[in-house]
């Protein structure tokens, strides 16, 4: 213990003698640790945002879209030919056992007016199941009742962005807004969900009963027509099964011959989202790896300086060995020097990394997330860099021949 303390004191003194050199050597580690911490914070921030967005979208989710139109050999995008009906949705709900909730949707864009304010947004006709599927909470008011749906009631539920733009601090519940000149009573306000995984503002939306959208607002090419059907399965294990059952059921209902293509498409949104999460994970791993390289470069800087230091102090080492320093005393002295460099550099690097991340996130508005594990890991890594890169020079010093070392000029 006293030997260790003595070595520590010798090492600190040697480092203080060359303040500038020690500081510059440390800088390599400071930058390395700082970069690791900042990059991991940025990476895990991005990962967390995507995970949040996936949670906000709802889990185990399918969206069934109308088919694509073909005219003169040219195919249009999904939903260009309306093929789905509210009855299809009802059939999916009743005939497929793995399905938890089904919500048919019919939407369009319309101008909303309240008092002297107006706002253009998506008007989404659906049923109350949609809020269950997307796990969407109400800030105030209520969801649609069966009566609202059956009677095509002129009621609406507002997203947060719409409330913010139309109602300056007024409680919207019970107020009348005009959608395409029809008066609608606001019955509910939804909690904010933020951006979707695709960057859309999910709160810029108004919900009306499905039937209201179909009959009063946007009209229909045929009765019961819907643009999409959201389906939530009971769990991830039945997703595959439910998907093929939906396809079979809809082909049968649409009377498609085996040779005909589907006139609809089923998308597994959870799969899309988890691949986005996967790429975020790869990205944060990559960022961390690149930052680690700078830490290793910092370590090589330490080794370089320690080698110079050992050569410069050959005579000192010779004196120490002559008066009775053992190999391990010399080894420890230089190893402690490199460890002090890397650990102090690591501590400063933690500060620099946190400060850098905060500055970066305030400028770019990127979400960042610090984790204690990542910080500890970076610190421990910097310590081991000190040991690893300090060992060779220290061993070289401890093996010097005292006679030659004493003669060294």
């Amino acid at each position, binding site marked *: 213990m006293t030997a260790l303390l003595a070595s520590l004191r010798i090492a600190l003194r040697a480092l203080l003698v060359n303040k500038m050199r020690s500081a510059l050597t440390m800088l390599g580690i400071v930058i390395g640790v700082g970069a690791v911490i900042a990059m991991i914070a940025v990476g895990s921030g991005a990962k967390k945002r995507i995970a949040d967005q996936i949670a906000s979208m709802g889990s185990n989710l399918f969206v069934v879209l109308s088919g694509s139109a073909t005219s003169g050999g040219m195919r249009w995008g999904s939903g260009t030919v309306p093929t789905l009906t509210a009855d299809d949705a009802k059939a999916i709900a009743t005939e497929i056992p793995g399905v938890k909730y089904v919500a048919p949707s019919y939407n369009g864009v319309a101008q909303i007016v309240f008092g002297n304010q107006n706002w253009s947004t998506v008007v989404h006709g659906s049923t109350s199941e949609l809020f269950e599927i997307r796990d969407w909470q109400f800030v105030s008011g209520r969801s649609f009742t069966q009566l609202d749906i059956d009677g095509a009631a002129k009621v609406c539920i507002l997203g947060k962005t719409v409330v913010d733009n139309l109602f300056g601090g007024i409680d919207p519940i019970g107020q009348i807004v005009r959608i395409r000149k029809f008066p609608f009573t606001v019955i509910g306000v939804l909690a904010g969900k933020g951006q979707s995984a695709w960057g859309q503002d999910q709160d810029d939306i108004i919900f009306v009963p499905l039937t209201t959208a179909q009959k009063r607002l946007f009209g229909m090419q045929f009765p019961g027509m819907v643009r999409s059907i959201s389906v939530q399965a009971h769990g991830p294990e039945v997703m595959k099964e439910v998907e093929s059952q939906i396809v079979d059921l809809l082909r049968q209902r649409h009377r498609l011959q085996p040779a005909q293509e589907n006139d609809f498409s089923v998308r597994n949104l959870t799969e899309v989202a988890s691949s986005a999460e996967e790429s975020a994970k790869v990205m944060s791993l990559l960022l961390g790896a690149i930052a680690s390289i700078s830490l290793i470069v910092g370590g090589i800087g330490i080794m370089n300086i320690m080698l110079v230091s050992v050569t410069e102090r050959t005579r000192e080492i010779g004196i120490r060995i002559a008066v009775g320093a053992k*190999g391990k005393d010399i080894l420890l002295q230089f190893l402690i020097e490199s460890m002090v460099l890397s650990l102090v550099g690591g501590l400063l690097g933690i500060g620099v990394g946190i400060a850098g991340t905060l500055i970066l996130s305030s400028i770019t508005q990127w979400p960042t997330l610090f984790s204690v594990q990542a910080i500890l890991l970076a610190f421990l890594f910097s310590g081991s860099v000190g040991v690893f890169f300090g060992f060779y020079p220290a061993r070289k010093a401890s093996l010097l021949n005292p006679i030659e070392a004493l003669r060294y000029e």
Partner: protein
Amino acid sequence: MEPLIQIKDLVKVYSLGEMEVKALRGVSLSIERSEFVAVMGASGSGKSTFMNILGFLDRPTSGQYLLEGIEGEHLSRDELAEIRNQKIGFVFQGFNLLSRTSAIENVRLPLIYAHHPSRKRQEMAEKALSAVGLKGREHHHPSQLSGGEQQRVAIARALVNQPSILLADEPTGNLDSKTSEEIMTIFKKLNQEMGITIVMITHEPDIAAYGKRKVLFKDGRIVEDSVS
């Protein structure tokens, strides 16, 4: 009582590539406690090699060297370091003090490797410094001391562990004649009053005259061994 140092047929051969240099060609010698031996010889006569072996800094090619009955031949590097630390004090021509380190810290250096508690280290170092007449200059750095004072710090460092033998390699080689005299007076005092055994290399006859016994090396052999 057995002699402090017993040397028999000591041979040291350096191989420089193809060439073999015989630095010592069979040296036999014994030194009793409290002797003051001056080792003389031209450069290349083997006296420095002899001194390195005496100080356990080097190993002989053949022959026997016993210090207080201990033989270094089969000891490890670290065990030799421990013997140097406990039994041998070195004084070099170039002082070999650690620069940027105060006098007392230089003197404490052997004690650090002997793992004495720090209070004891301080006491022993202060005592050694006052024995060479440097009381009050403990916190001066080598650059603030004269050559003679630096060599006195080196002597204090050599003495601090109460070694069996003090080995001095041209201790006055870098000093003027007046300072040399001061240093030799200290050596004489240490030998006469404290009974410390000293082996000193020098090529100056008037410095060698301070020794009680003179050993002359020539071509790796002792050619003269006389007590004055």
